[in-house]
């Protein structure tokens, strides 16, 4: 699944560790999501959407839109 997490994080000048703290996950988890090695669960996807104040489908793209 593709996502815009890295771009959104960069726009806010946040490090992966900083974003991890805001989402209550490890830096490695943020890195895995950004590189497409891990698809976040629905609760985590909602937390990400709330943090960036955007709809989930504007952050994640499952290729079926």
């Amino acid at each position: 699944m593709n996502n815009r997490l890295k771009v959104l994080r960069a726009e806010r000048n946040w490090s992966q560790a900083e974003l991890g703290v805001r989402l209550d996950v490890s830096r490695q988890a943020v890195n895995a999501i950004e590189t497409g090695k891990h698809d976040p669960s629905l609760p985590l996807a909602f937390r990400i959407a709330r943090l960036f104040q955007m709809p989930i489908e504007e952050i994640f793209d499952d290729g079926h839109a």
Partner: protein
Amino acid sequence: MSKFKRWLYSPRANDLAFAFAGLASAALLATGPLVRRVSPPPFEYSPVMGFVLVAVIVAASVFAAFIARLDNRNLDEYMFLLLAKSALIAIVTLIVAWALWTALFAGNLGDLPGAAMMPMVFLAWSAGYGYTRIRGTGPEA
């Protein structure tokens, strides 16, 4: 969550633990101290033995479920999925390795000693952890 507990459940601590467990298990299996150990005489099967074995496995599975619940609560979802997927890889690895050994090598090299089971489990789990850490937790990995 305390600082120690946070470190205990961190990816770095898991990386270190699996690297150590994998290397130590590979060294144990490769150098053979388990094989040289004097083996106890084989047990005669009895219904009591079978009953005790089933009871021990059921009790251990309840304990394991409790540990898994603790991990699920304290690890973030990426780390928990990483551990779970690598454990699945380890189980299949063990079944296939045991079957291959029995079919191809046991005749010439002998049966695997029971004492080799634990290092085999840790080596297979560490290999699965390393693979999943590199490739990821997704279905395409």
